[in-house]
């Protein structure tokens, strides 16, 4: 039996449970046998020790040549502060051990500080992810708009890696840590039912507002849709490894980088490359358009030129593609984000492109 049960079919427009707060309190703190497993803080951030908080990105890097020292692979950037949790690599074809010729795989923050590093001297088995090791607690925390990158540094003649994929796990940092320090049971029950239950036909279940001005910053609707307007962890990231683009084939290439499931809003799009590209030509350059489905443009940049307005890419660094066209930023379920390439004059060959999309789920 629940301790608090709300069963109501009246009162449309008003929530069942309203919390008015302007202080440092968490709204909810849930503990499993005395250990915190969930809290809803004053910013409307749901912080959970479950896999819900642990975001994962599987980032294909393609074939790594034996000598790939010249490249830096952009890994991730976020509009909010994040903590990297684990990093693994895998290959699509087994490569034998070599104690003399191998790669040192290193993940570094934007300032070049090592987050983690390991070697491939032991070889890699196909379809078997291998941990890069324990991540630095100092440098594995990336501030908003701080990128990190991956490098492969050969020893002797190096080691070629076929179909390499980086598997990265991260969490979006809560805006503040829990204020709770003491151990106390405010509500407890021995049975297994929900402790706070609400069964409604018209009301929202939960609304959290500023105590003084009534501004709502967290809501759970009648349908269970969570709206947390200020929460850092409402943002999600998708990465597409576009690979090499050759000017000769650009007109035929359209990359489907994202498929919406449910309504989403696109907030930012970044581009990165594992090789630097200067904006050094007014005649030959590549225009990259990001579109909703295949026609409605969200963002556009030119790479390789023109000199005055083109975007220069620095290897290993994600840069914003600029302001998103607001009216195209809302995607319905099934809508796509596609990437298109157009050459001006001879165009530009682009090596190892990556696109990173920041979005939020709306329903």
């Amino acid at each position, binding site marked *: 039996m629940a301790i608090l049960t709300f069963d109501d079919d009246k009162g449309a427009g008003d929530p069942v449970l309203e919390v008015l707060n302007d202080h440092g309190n968490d709204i909810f703190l*849930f503990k*499993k046998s005395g250990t915190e497993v969930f809290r809803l803080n004053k910013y409307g951030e749901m912080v959970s020790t479950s896999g819900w908080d642990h975001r*994962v*990105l599987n980032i294909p890097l393609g074939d790594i040549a034996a000598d790939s020292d010249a490249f830096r692979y952009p890994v991730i950037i976020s509009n909010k502060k994040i903590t990297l949790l*684990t990093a693994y690599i895998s290959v699509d074809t087994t490569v034998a051990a070599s104690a003399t010729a191998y790669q040192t795989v290193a993940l570094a923050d934007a300032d070049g500080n090592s987050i983690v590093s390991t070697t491939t001297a032991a070889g890699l088995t196909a379809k078997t992810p291998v941990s890069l090791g324990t991540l630095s607690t100092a440098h594995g925390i990336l501030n908003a708009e701080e990128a990190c990158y991956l490098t492969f540094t050969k020893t002797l003649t190096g080691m070629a890696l076929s179909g390499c994929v980086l598997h990265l796990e991260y969490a979006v940092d809560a805006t503040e840590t829990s204020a709770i320090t003491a151990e106390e049971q405010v509500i407890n029950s021995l049975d297994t039912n929900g*402790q706070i239950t609400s069964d409604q036909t018209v009301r929202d279940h939960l609304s959290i507002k500023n105590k003084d001005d009534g501004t709502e910053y967290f809501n759970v609707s009648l349908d269970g849709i969570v709206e947390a307007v200020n929460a850092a962890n409402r943002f999600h990231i998708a990465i*597409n490894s576009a690979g090499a683009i050759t000017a000769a084939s650009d007109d035929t290439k359209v990359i489907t980088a994202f498929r919406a499931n449910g309504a989403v809003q696109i907030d930012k799009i970044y581009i990165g490359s594992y090789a630097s590209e200067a904006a050094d030509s007014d005649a030959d350059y590549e225009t990259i358009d990001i579109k909703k489905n295949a026609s409605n443009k969200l963002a556009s940049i030119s790479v390789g030129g023109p000199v005055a307005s083109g975007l220069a890419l620095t290897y290993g660094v994600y840069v914003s593609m600029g302001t998103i066209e607001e009216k195209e930023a809302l995607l319905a379920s099934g809508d796509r984000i596609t990437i298109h390439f157009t050459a001006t004059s001879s165009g530009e060959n682009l090596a190892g492109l990556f696109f990173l999309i920041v979005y939020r*789920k709306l329903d």
Partner: protein
Amino acid sequence: MGAVMTLRSGKGSRAIVEVNKDSGDFLVFYKDTVEVFSVDINGLPDTTCNQQYFYESVNIGDIVADSDAITPVIFFKQQAATLVGIYLSCDEDKALDAANYQTIAVLDESANSIVSLAWTAAFDVDTDVPLTMGSLSGTHKILTAGEHAYATFTKTLNGQAISGLTFHILYTVES
């Protein structure tokens, strides 16, 4: 009419509502007796809305006509997850070919088939939405913590090269 219960706080550092228990859900919201949102004993928020789904775009690049030997890992997560849907796209138009094609399969870590598709159909990069691989195995789509899924390619006759093959993966997080 106002809220049924209003909690007002301007002081103190403790949580407004604190629950400590050993089993069962902490919080359950129903819409006319059907559960729509909960927080379970492991702190997992769960909703029946689209916010329950997580998404991955995994572009493994160009697949040559004979790619039978490669087995790229396309999904790996340290926590338990259930794959909900897997979709395919490519970045250059692909012709219909019922004789030469790839059978693309996704398998769990123990090599059990999660889903398999003989991709004979054409794909128009301008107009086609990602192609569903079909219904996933009810048993093997559930991946335990730290279990990965990988792809295989099996050519029929001469096979078919695919440019910029991307897996679009939808999954939910398990408690």
